């Protein structure tokens, strides 16, 4: 797509390991991994966009011998039709006929909400600035309103799927990503629940937990409510333990966590509750625990009379029909009072306040596009990457499920960054080392300086590995 030549890249010779289309990029390294495949960070070589960072999502050929995965098809299909400032931009699709793999190239976003929340909780130990929370939420709702008004439900909103652009023209702009589970809901050929109900369990709406077959865009709004609370408190609001085993298990613990905060739903407030399968089957059990004096306030600690509290409770409304919509939420008073939301969520227009330099995504520079580990870095990779690529301990197995844990790269202190007026984009993800693996300072420094020399803002994209696994 895009320029006609880029995807006409059959690599018919079959001898070169590097297909023609791939030669337009410098591969930097692996930044993520999921059941669908791998995500890489690369930079464009061509003169027009030189150095621009791109996240390349590689879809594996499905194991059951059934060609391009339906998830990839769905994602391409939707992303090819939509354009919005707050939705991730698909810039190219490539096919490698030799190994039948498919690559989606996206504009790279440096940060995501998972990483931002984590950084505040574990590193700086202070809440996220109110301006930032409001701007992130507003932009998330703005993107979601666009999707919903086009009859697209995302279905898998969670902090790691909400990206934020790093330094550059779009600094601090929210991008909703990962449309593998999204769908057009206007005229589904099958009930939406049939393809496997999804949404990471902590952000899953109560109607889904109770077995609703036909659900709506309101499930995304519930997830936004959970994310809003998490931005305020830095803790997941409803942290249930997931039951796996069966394909569509009843997640009692997750429901229980919700009831603990919001109290039990009642038929008066939520009439269609009576029709939900799990509710019908087992009311007693579901209401097993009695919770008195439940209050959202105990968990989020914002004044119950404040607009923020009002908005949050409307997002966490039990009855999906009464739950606030994205359009209504954008119009809520919360967004009309100071501080007003802004385009750059990370840095406000008015100076004076201190802002956090967020860590950037760690990059595993030892993995090539085949997903295999290279001790001998390929030619095209910049020397900066090559250094760390050759370091002991910097390479990891391509089987690793959580590559982020393993890659050790140190982030530069914020002051040092500011001296270059480059802020955090060039740094590596020290704050993103959830496994607490020792890091190699030498590597980080070398890498960092290389990045500065290149003088191009990197963008982060694809989510860090999940705290909770997704479907499949």
């Amino acid at each position, binding site marked *: *797509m895009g320029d006609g030549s880029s*995807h*006409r890249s059959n690599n018919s010779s079959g001898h070169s390991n590097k297909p023609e289309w791939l030669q337009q990029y410098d591969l930097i390294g692996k930044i993520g991994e999921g059941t669908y495949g791998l995500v890489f960070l690369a930079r464009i070589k061509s003169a027009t966009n030189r150095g621009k960072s791109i996240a390349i999502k590689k879809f594996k050929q499905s194991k059951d*011998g*059934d*060609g*391009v995965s*339906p998830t990839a*098809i*769905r994602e*391409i*299909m*939707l992303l*090819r*039709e*939509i354009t919005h400032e707050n939705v991730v931009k698909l810039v190219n*699709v490539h*096919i490698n*006929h030799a190994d*039948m793999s*498919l690559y989606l190239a996206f504009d790279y976003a440096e940060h995501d909400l998972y990483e931002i929340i984590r950084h505040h909780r574990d590193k700086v130990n202070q809440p996220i600035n109110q301006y930032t929370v409001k701007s992130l939420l507003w932009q998330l709702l703005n993107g979601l309103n666009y999707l919903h008004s*086009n*009859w*697209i439900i995302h279905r898998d909103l969670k902090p790691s799927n909400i990206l934020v652009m790093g330094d550059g023209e779009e600094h601090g702009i929210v991008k909703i990503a990962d449309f593998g589970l999204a*769908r*057009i809901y*206007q*005229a*589904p*050929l*099958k009930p939406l629940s049939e*393809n496997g109900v999804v949404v990471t369990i902590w952000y899953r709406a109560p109607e889904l937990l109770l077995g609703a077959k036909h659900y709506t865009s309101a499930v995304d709004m519930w997830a936004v409510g959970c994310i809003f609370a998490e931005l305020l408190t830095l803790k997941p609001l409803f942290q249930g333990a997931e039951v796996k085993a069966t394909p569509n298990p009843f997640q009692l613990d997750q429901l229980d966590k919700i009831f603990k905060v919001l109290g039990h739903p009642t038929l008066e407030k939520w009439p269609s509750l009576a029709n939900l399968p799990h509710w019908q089957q087992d009311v007693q059990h579901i209401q097993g625990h009695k919770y008195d004096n439940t209050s959202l306030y105990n968990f989020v600690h914002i004044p119950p009379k404040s607009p923020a509290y009002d908005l949050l409770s409307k997002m966490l409304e039990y009855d999906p029909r009464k739950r606030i919509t994205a359009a209504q939420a954008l119009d809520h008073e919360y967004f009309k009072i100071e501080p007003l939301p802004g385009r750059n969520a990370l840095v406000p227009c008015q100076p004076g306040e201190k802002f956090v330099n967020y860590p950037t995504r760690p990059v595993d520079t030892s993995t090539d596009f085949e997903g295999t580990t290279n001790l001998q870095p390929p030619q095209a990779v910049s020397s900066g990457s090559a250094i760390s690529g050759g370091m002991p301990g910097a390479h990891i197995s391509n089987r690793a499920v959580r590559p982020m844990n393993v890659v050790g790269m140190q982030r530069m202190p914020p002051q040092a960054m500011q001296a270059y007026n480059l802020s955090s984009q060039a740094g590596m993800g020290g704050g993103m080392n959830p496994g607490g693996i020792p890091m190699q300072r030498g590597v980080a420094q070398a890498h960092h300086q290389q990045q500065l020399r290149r003088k191009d803002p990197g963008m982060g994209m694809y989510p860090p590995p999940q705290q909770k696994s997704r479907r499949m």
Partner: protein
Amino acid sequence: MATNFWTSSHYKQLLDQEDVDMVNPLDKEKGITLEDFKLIKIHMANYISKLAQNVKVRQRVVATAVTYMRRVYTRKSLTEYDPRLVAPTCLYLASKAEESTVQARLLVFYIKKLYSDDKYRFEIKDILEMEMKILEALNYYLVVFHPYRSLSQLLQDAGLNDINMTQVTWGLVNDTYKMDLILVHPPHLIALACIYIASVQREKDTTVWFEELRVDMNVVKNISMEILDFYEGNRMITEDRISAALNKLGFRS
């Protein structure tokens, strides 16, 4: 946009009839005429339909598959993209896009059942390779709008939503996929043409209703004429003519 036709890739990709009726130079060299080209596409649309009945997917999947097939041949030659492989692969891809995934091995099974001829014989691997080539040829635009949705809305609006009219118009819409109309006209105009034909045939007076619609009736009438012409010409299509056309391509003799 996923549901707004006027901002969709489908709308932006609509072609002029002349562009659809261009026989690829490679095919011309083999003696393929415009007539042959159309015949082959009709045959492949029928093939997709038959396969779909066997693997039990709904009409919308068939419609999407046929649209993919027709779009492919506005850009690629029959010579390079064997229609006997493109047709089932389009159904395969459409089944994924329309969330009714059909397994490739099931398709291969029914292909063998439908056609004993070796020229139709393909393996799973062939389908999977062609799937990628088709994705590329479609330039990754996969959302297709069909007349069916507007059809039911329009029939209701015209007060013609009795079972009889619904069946007749639905059948007409199905048959429009034997033509290239979906590549040239917005789907709601195709739906209107089908309603127009049916109402003339069933002697329902819809003049006022059509007048109030504020659509270009000339376009609707032209589409209707094209559909009627197709029915006229369709009687002359025989297996022999289709084989003759396909033989010119000379695959795997």
